[in-house]
Structures are given as structure tokens and as C-alpha cells.
């Protein structure tokens, strides 16, 4: 079976093969088995991962225990805040769901790859990932707002349940799952 590579990834398909290979040559490859921790919430963020194969889960610790708030699919970058120079810690834990292979993208790789197509590809993937994050968070804000307005317009109170959201803050918390 051929080793996982960037070749089959839709998000990188527009990039000529030799340039995709250039990215693979400069980036360290890393493998994870199912259940293995990729990043742990609260740890310093020092690299991002471009997933080549497999699937990962993004989980956060809440008062009620561990909660899955998203999946990472091949072609996606995860942990990109490490590259933004914000000095932030991991805001979530990432676990391999399936046997997974990724490329480590860190600031030293970007520096070494200056002037190459590999750097441009990595930067572009980061831009797309950040754009998705911003749109998703704003989508959650909009949805929380709509739910709140709909609830306020209802003449009867919502059913009482321990987990039922009661205000804008609760609704947004539920939609974001604590992931910021």
C-alpha cells in the first residue's frame, strides 16, 4: 500500500505534484494510532498538523466531562494557532480516531521554506482554515441569536430541563462547546 501523501487531498489538488512533494520533503511526517493524543488542552502550542490520512476528533473538557466538538479530515490543518505568534496554549485536545498520518507544520518549517511553493501552500491552507474558524464562530453567534429571539417570541416557556439553555450566553456556550 502506498504511503499516505498529499496527492489524494482535494484541498491540495490544484497544486502541481512536484510542489506537493516539495512540501512533503520539508515537513516532518508523523503517525498516530487510534486513541492517541495529538495535542492536549492547556499545553503550549508549538506546531500545527496537516492531516494526510485518517481522522481526528477535537474534544474539550467541560464540567460534565469530555465533549467532542469537531472532527478533522484529511487536507485540513489543525492546531494552527501555533503558527500565529499569539503565544496561546492549546484550547482543545485532539485525538486520533483512526490510524492517522500528518505533516508537522511549524514556524521553523515556514522559515526554511521561504521563497518556495511549499511555504505558499502552507500559508494558503492556514488562511483557509482561519477563515473557516471565523465563519463557524460567527455562524454559531448568529444561530444563538436566532434561537434566543425565537424563544423570546414564544408565548409559552421552554420545557424545563437541567440542560435547557435559558439565555444568549447558554445558547452560545452550547453551540461553541467551550471551543474558543
Amino acid at each position, binding site marked *: 500500500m502506498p504511503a499516505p501523501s498529499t496527492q489524494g487531498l482535494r484541498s491540495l489538488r490544484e497544486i502541481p505534484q512536484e510542489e506537493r512533494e516539495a512540501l512533503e520533503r520539508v515537513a516532518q511526517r508523523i503517525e498516530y494510532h487510534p486513541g492517541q493524543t495529538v495535542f492536549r488542552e492547556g499545553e503550549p502550542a508549538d506546531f500545527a498538523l496537516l492531516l494526510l490520512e485518517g481522522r481526528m476528533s477535537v474534544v474539550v473538557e467541560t464540567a460534565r466531562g469530555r465533549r467532542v466538538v469537531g472532527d478533522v479530515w484529511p487536507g485540513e490543518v489543525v492546531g494552527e*494557532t501555533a503558527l500565529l505568534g499569539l503565544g496561546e496554549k492549546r484550547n482543545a485536545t485532539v485525538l486520533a480516531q483512526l490510524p492517522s498520518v500528518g505533516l508537522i507544520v511549524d514556524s521553523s518549517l515556514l522559515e526554511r521554506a521561504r*521563497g518556495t511553493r511549499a*511555504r*505558499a501552500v502552507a500559508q494558503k491552507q492556514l488562511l483557509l482554515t482561519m477563515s473557516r474558524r471565523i465563519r463557524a*464562530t460567527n455562524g454559531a*453567534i*448568529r444561530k444563538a441569536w*436566532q434561537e434566543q429571539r425565537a424563544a423570546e417570541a414564544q408565548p409559552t416557556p421552554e420545557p424545563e430541563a437541567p440542560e435547557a439553555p435559558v439565555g444568549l450566553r447558554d445558547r*452560545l456556550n452550547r453551540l461553541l462547546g467551550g471551543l474558543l
Partner: protein
Amino acid sequence: MNESTAIAHLILERHALHPELDALLGALLEQCFQHRAEPGEVLCREGDATRDLFFLLDGEVEVRMRDLCGEDRPIATLLAPTMFGHMGMIDAAPRSATCVAHGQARLAVMGRELFDELLDDPGPGGDILRRLMLAAMSQQLAKGNAALRIFLDPSIEAPENFAAERLRHASGTLEGWR
């Protein structure tokens, strides 16, 4: 230092990028279409296809957005020099807001063709554009998430009727309007 380089210097400083890259960004600004906007001129309209990246060189731009009631309301005023309209250029989403020249304004407008060419260009021109957008979006995420964390913090009491305004602020910050 010519005017484009001086403006580029300020834009780079604003996004915490090395101001010595100003000549590179200044050259990009000069490749753009130079536009003088009249007071009240609509530069882009919410919901329209995204075709241009804007650099506001001089003047002010009012940002308006429809709220959930469908009411068009001002959410921010952009002051020169700054860049706006980059998110839709990256993900090809429609415009998220309407931008109107507030008084006379001068802009450098980068069309889709040049933008796409630079986005894939491994050379210094493409690199500075990608770094500028990465820096801008990092700031959007950092400031927007910080505002949301405060909003979501149960130990910070705030009246519920003030919540919508605080969320609007966080949302505008994430979009890069504040």
C-alpha cells in the same frame, strides 16, 4: 520613502508585521487600481459576490450590516490606512457587510485576477500579501475570541438586554470590522 511605502509602513505596523517590508507592500499597492470614492459611494454591498480586496489609503469607510430583524445598521467605521474585504477573497464567500465611503476616500483596489495570482505566488509579493492577511486574521481571531470568552464567562454578570450588543461587538471583531 514615497507615499505608497509610507502607507504600507503604517498598515504593517497595525498588524504587528516588520515595517521594513514596507517597500514590498508599497509596490503591491501601486499595482492596484487607484480609486477616489465620493461621499456616500457604496464600495461593496452585503450579499454580493466578492471581487476585490480594498486598501483604504485615505479617508473613512462606514461598515453597515443587516441585523436579524433585517435592519441595515452601522457597525463600525474604518479609518485609513487599513485593509478590508480579505476574508471573502480567501474563501469566495459573498460580502458580509456593506461598505460606504464616509466623506471622500482614496483606495487601492486589488481585483480578483491579481489577488489569485499573488495568493499562489511563492515570490516576495505573494508572501507579503499572505503574511499580511494571516496577521490580520490572527488579530481578528485573538480579539474576537477574547471578547467571546468574556461574554461566556459566568462569573461576569451583565444584564441580558446588553448581551446582544456585546455579541454584535464580538462578531464584528471576528469579521475584522473593529
